């Protein structure tokens, strides 16, 4: 036994074991202990050997997949600030400015979310689930950089408690907790969460996001022309040098995360493929109706939809949450395709709020069990058909 393992056993027996003073705090000890050292428990029954992967590794891999989005997000927040101030943009300058804005948001999210997670683990006497590492960072990355920190705390509290814990914790929730938190702050504090002024962390500065530009363009005009005249190019939007939520603006960063998730097979490729197919299909359908009377959004080509707003981020990191998505393979295709279609539907025909990703995914989270129900009934029917054949 290594030195650390010995020490940990000593501490456990002295303070956290049954009947010792800090017995109730065992989940906290367990979380720290198993963070440092693998649990080292052996199997009690067949199968006697097990795969090396565990939930800790899976969840941390999702966080690793988010690193490009985090770095790009920090840079872009700083970059947008410097642009707004009219200052000279340097890499270190932008990173520094961005970090000062973004890191407090991430820290508050983890501190408050982790507090709730720990509290529920203690009360329920179960292990702390690493899922909150993912929930916390996802929530932080969907926020505008100008959000007051107390709002971050309220939002993540709502997401963790109402979105997850009241259902029984990770694995039992119906909605994606990060999106639940995001939706809560969006509807509770619309002034701080929407409009053109919240995306760059400089007072008095406002610039419409690409989605807002298209939503505000005249009927019958071309969406791409509207974007171009507002100073947006396709590559700026795809790379993410545009105002927007901290981590969502760069489709390229999401793509890097996607590659990592697919190579390590942590995320369901069916959901993501479904989202993209749905998005292309729906924007094709809408493009058939573009014309002088139609909203400018009808004319926005699919590949612009793909990189704009939170679609890439939502499809890669939110829709793929295995707990709140459909759980059958066929179901995942349907779930993904419908998310893609809903995103475009909301963007194009709902002028009040041009970003449809959050609501599309939450809506499909609610419908995922229904989709699964029909897929499972298909399995039951196959079974019944067998009896009748025999």
């Amino acid at each position, binding site marked *: 036994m290594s030195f650390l393992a010995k020490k940990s056993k000593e501490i456990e027996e002295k303070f956290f074991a049954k009947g010792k003073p800090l017995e109730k705090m065992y989940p906290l000890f367990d979380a720290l202990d198993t963070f440092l*050292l693998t649990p080292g428990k*052996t199997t009690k029954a*067949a199968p006697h*050997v097990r795969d090396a992967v*565990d939930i800790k590794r899976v969840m941390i891999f999702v966080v690793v997949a988010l690193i490009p989005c985090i770095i790009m997000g920090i840079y872009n927040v700083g970059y947008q600030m410097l642009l707004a101030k009219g200052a000279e943009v340097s890499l270190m300058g932008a990173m520094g400015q961005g970090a000062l804005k973004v890191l407090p948001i991430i820290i508050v999210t983890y501190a408050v979310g982790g507090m709730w997670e720990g509290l529920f683990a203690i009360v329920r006497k179960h292990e702390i689930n690493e899922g909150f590492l993912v929930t916390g960072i996802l929530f932080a990355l969907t926020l505008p950089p100008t959000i007051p920190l107390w709002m971050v705390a309220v939002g993540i509290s709502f997401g963790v408690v109402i979105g997850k814990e009241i259902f029984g914790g990770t694995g039992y929730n119906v909605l994606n907790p990060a999106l639940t938190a995001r939706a809560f702050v969006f509807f509770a504090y619309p002034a701080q969460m929407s409009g053109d002024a919240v995306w760059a962390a400089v007072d008095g500065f406002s610039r419409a996001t690409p989605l807002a530009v298209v939503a505000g363009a005249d009927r019958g005009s071309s969406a791409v022309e509207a974007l171009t005249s507002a100073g947006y190019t396709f590559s700026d939007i795809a790379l993410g040098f545009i105002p927007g939520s901290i981590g969502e603006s760069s489709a390229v960063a999401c793509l890097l995360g996607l590659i990592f998730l697919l190579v390590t097979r942590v995320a369901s490729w069916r959901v993501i493929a479904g989202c993209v197919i749905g998005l292309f299909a729906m924007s094709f359908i809408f493009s058939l109706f573009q014309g002088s009377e139609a909203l400018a959004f009808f004319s926005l080509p699919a590949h612009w939809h793909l990189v704009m707003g939170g679609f890439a981020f939502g499809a890669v990191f939110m829709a793929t949450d295995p707990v709140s998505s459909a759980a059958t393979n066929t179901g995942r295709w349907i779930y993904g395709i419908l998310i893609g279609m809903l995103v475009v539907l909301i963007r194009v025909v709902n002028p009040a709020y041009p970003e449809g990703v959050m609501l599309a995914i939450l809506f499909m989270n609610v419908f995922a069990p229904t989709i699964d129900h029909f897929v499972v009934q298909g*399995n039951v029917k196959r079974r019944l058909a067998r009896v009748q054949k025999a």
Partner: protein
Amino acid sequence: MSSFNIKRGKDIQLKGEARREYIDVLAPQRVAIQPPDFRGLKARVLVKEGEKVQRGSVVIEDKDIDGLNLLSPISGTVKAINRGAKRALLSIVIENDKSNDSRDFKKYSAADIKKLKRKDIVASLLEGGLWPTIRQRPFGKIASPQDKPKSIFVRAINTDPLAADTDFILNDQEKDFQAGLNILTNLTDGKVHLCIKDTANSAALTSAEGVEVHLFSGPHPAGNVGTHIHHVDPINKGDVVWYVEAQDVVRIAQLFSTGQYPNRCVVALTGEGAKDNVYAFTLQGASIKDLLSGTDFAGKRCLTGSVLSGRDVGADGFLGFYDSQITIVPEGGNREFLGWLVPGFKKYTLSHTYASAFLPEKPVSLDTDENGGHRAIVLNHLYDSYVALDVVTYFLLKAILAEDIDEAERLGILECDPEDFALCTFVCPSKVNVGSIIRQGLDIIEKEG
């Protein structure tokens, strides 16, 4: 002849495969009868410690099925009657006196065997102690002699990690094997299905007559009887099918032709913890210490059966009644520093979260570490890729945990056995024992009748 190519599943390649040579362990010091081998057995012990028994003496009778007996494989003295928690009977150990003093049963000529009636076969198998070789699905318990199974499956393929190669151990047994198949065909009005590996080439399997032969290929669980039943003649509510291991078919024939309790069997001694990985001719229920003399068992787990579906019997344990494999693997329990962070070139995973997943596959060393803490099920889509049955595993588990038995039956629980889900448990990152949830569901159904 029909073929089935199983696509869902995985062959875990472990170190310690038995090489194709035989050693003789035909006079083990001790053998044991282990009631936990027999699901559903309500054992009443008929011997006392120190009592002399013959080869073929009744040691245990079942309280429920009239005439169902477990016999002593050897002549000798009852050395110990071991009990565990709640006085559950664990094993009856018999010390070998090597005299081969044997109880006689009725003997049949080859011509007579072909003409046997069901009633006589049942009576002889019960009396001769080989009735327990016939098990049933659902529930995986000893068959009831009154039941009329819709078919009988003979399993002559085993795809468990390091499993004994049925094709190899049936070499030169074609006569007895065929005679055993004939007896089984007289036992049912339905068909007898012989399930073999597509590459099988021993005469016993390739020239079997009077039965339906099915070729199975693909990864584990292609060799599980649950897989065979599901694809060949699936069970619906109210159905019963029986199944027998190939080696036991040979033994059934020997009971009729020799008039003595057939106690010989072949076992593969596997796993990197064993001193030598080889096949052994031995006696049913032989002790692990006899089979693996010279092996250092410290820090190792001794399994009868495979790492996926075997039972931990300890170094003082014995070969299980239905098993043709002993596996010795190192115990785990090492705590690794920041284990979630390491690249893992030497980790074994079917996920792609360790570097080893991108290296060419070769036999690996696995210990009994769970490799993670218990969590709620998160990656619910993994299971179905490792079950060879057309079931929606995650929803079946949810139905069982909610004790919604009607739904579980609709989702096919009656076709399921824990061993069919061993790979699901293996891959589950939440370390959920899928098989034990399936067992929980089957137990409820059995209890409620």
